[in-house]
């Protein structure tokens, strides 16, 4: 700016009059945000909390085909806990949830790290890894069933290639069926996890890596000791999303094994659906739903707590 041209600014307009009375404006500033948020809050109160309360109530009744509003106590929970099938589902959820989350994390992270190495076809590969997210399991279930079926898919193919001892019969093996669900689940979700991690990796300060290189660390060491630990917040988000998928997984199991062979790959979501809607044991279904919700809370609350704690102490 030159000092020498003090062409005096005279601005004719001077906003002395507010367009809205001050009171009203102040009022709007305070209340508009709440007003905007309120439909969502009310919807959530009714459609989430209200419905949870409704389910909790149903779980205390003897509802069969249709809701019945007469309270009968905790009998449904007792019945639930006596059911083998419930415990099978719960155990399956544990196995599936644990492995699914573990493998998604490992596969997603590895792919993200590798994709981050200035890979030539990064865009195309990323699209390939991500596309299963786009498909519903109603769509891909049949394909997976074929691939994993020993008589039709992978096993047959590999045997025809000249490995007659190759065996991949998990789908039809009661003890292993739940693991095929893990395979398909990882297939569907690990790409998304990869995307989240990739986004996280791109956010890591480049100079940290340079510093570590100068410090003498090799690339694997740098990732292991420095970069990946720095992705901690991403791990939290990923864990949150994955546990949500795991607990709610329904389509996946339904399409692949429908809980079978027998009930060996049953999970709580299917359990609940069948008991509530086809077996006319709505009360029992509601009790199992409540147990599911409690599991969600048991996973969620510590996660959210940890994350908010971390965020507070973080930057």
């Amino acid at each position: 700016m030159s000092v020498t041209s003090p062409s005096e600014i005279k601005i004719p307009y001077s906003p002395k009059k507010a367009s809205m009375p001050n009171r009203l404006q102040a009022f709007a500033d305070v209340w508009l945000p709440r007003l905007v948020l309120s439909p969502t809050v009310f919807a959530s109160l009714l459609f989430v909390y209200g419905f949870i309360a409704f389910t909790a109530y149903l779980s205390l009744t003897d509802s069969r085909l249709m809701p019945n509003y007469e309270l009968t106590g905790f009998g449904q929970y007792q019945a639930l806990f006596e059911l083998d099938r419930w415990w099978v589902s719960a155990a399956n959820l544990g196995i599936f949830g644990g492995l699914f989350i573990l493998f998604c994390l490992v596969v997603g992270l590895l792919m993200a790290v590798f994709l981050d190495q200035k890979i030539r076809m990064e865009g195309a590969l990323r699209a390939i890894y991500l596309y299963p997210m786009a498909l519903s399991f109603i769509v891909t279930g049949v394909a997976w069933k074929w691939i994993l079926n020993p008589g039709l898919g992978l096993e047959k193919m590999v045997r025809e290639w000249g490995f007659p001892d190759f065996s991949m019969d998990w789908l039809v093996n009661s003890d292993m069926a739940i693991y095929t669900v893990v395979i398909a689940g990882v297939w569907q979700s690990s790409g998304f996890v990869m995307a989240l991690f990739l986004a996280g990796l791109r956010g890591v300060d480049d100079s940290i890596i340079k510093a570590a290189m100068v410090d003498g660390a090799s690339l694997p060491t740098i990732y292991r000791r420095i970069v990946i630990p720095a992705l901690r917040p991403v791990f939290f988000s990923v864990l949150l999303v994955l546990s949500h998928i795991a607990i709610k997984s329904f389509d996946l199991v339904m399409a692949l094994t429908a809980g079978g062979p027998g009930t060996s790959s049953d999970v709580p979501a299917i359990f609940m659906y069948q008991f509530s809607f086809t077996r006319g044991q709505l009360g029992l279904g509601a009790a199992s739903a409540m147990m599911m919700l409690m599991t969600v809370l048991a996973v969620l609350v510590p996660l959210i707590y940890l994350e908010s704690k971390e965020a507070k102490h973080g930057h």
Partner: protein
Amino acid sequence: AEVEVLHYWTSGGEAKSVAELKKMMEAKGVAWKDFAVAGGAGENAMTALKARVIAGSAPTAALIKGPSIQEWGNEGVLANIDAAAAEGKWDASLPPMLANIMKYKGHYVAAPVNVHRVNWLWVNPEVLKKSGAKVPTNFAEFFDAADKIKKAGYVAIAHGGQPWQDATVFESVALGVGGADFYKKAIVQLDQASLTGPTMIKTFDTLAKIKTYIDKDSAGRDWNLATAMVINGKAGMQFMGDWAKGEFTAAGKQPGKDFLCVAAPGTEKSFTFNVDSLTMFAVKGADAQKAQLTLAGAVMSPEFQEVFNLNKGSIPARAGVSRAKFDSCALKSMDDMDASSKAGSFVPSFAHGMAIDSAKAGAIQDVIAKFMNSNMTSQAAVQALAKAAKTK
């Protein structure tokens, strides 16, 4: 006026059959709204139905069968169609056993569409011939044949490891091993003594033996893929209801020549039935109610029963339908139905929800499925069965 019908007949022959009904209704000036929901054993359809009923917009009719009709009746949401029944003289043309199923507290609330026979054994004569086996009529012969087939390098028994298929085999075995009275006592009345008695143990033993003739890839296989194994000559025999016939005919096979339909071993005199019925829901408005009665009448009309069952492979529920166009298997079915009705061996299929209410049926099905897919002993199985039968 229009009728809205919830069903899960969505594929091939069955869809064509419903289309016939639609045509007939439209001819009578009633529009047809098709509410088709496939999947599972009507699981999704039931879910949708409940939502509709709760929302206060129940469909005109829904495909509900067996004891479930009573369960829905208890909820007080069904319509009385006595008027249509009177007009069509249903009492006269339906076997009393069936008529009872269609009634709630003495009033008709549902119209039967067909009768499926479940205790069939489907046989590929070519395979049997090559293995030197003959068509079995009891379990001794059956296992003898199975051994031979197996030795010849075929799969003896084509089976799909889904709970309802397991249950189908189970009920045929129970009927074959224990006879109709045992079946009724144990599986329909859920008599604890029969459930845990030696006959039931023998049933499970037989089932366990059958397991050994099933190929290991059966788990989760759809029934029609299993049927395809018989059609293609990969397998010798299959336990399955008469709908399997549709697969054979679709593949251009002739009954009696390319494939045989015989009663499951030891059940020649008995008949396990699976009756599809359209259960009528209370609807509002005189128009709608009238259309509902029209629908009920149409379903029970001999014309419809004929076309529908020709398409679907089952036999008409009512008497007085021309037998002319039905094939040999169907004719055999019709004869057996008459005979077994008289002999008291006309029994409801448990595997297809005709025998007991859904909660108990589900629990028992779980036990059978577990037995089929684990090393459970017969002893343990009957204990579990007895416990499941107590499900409320």
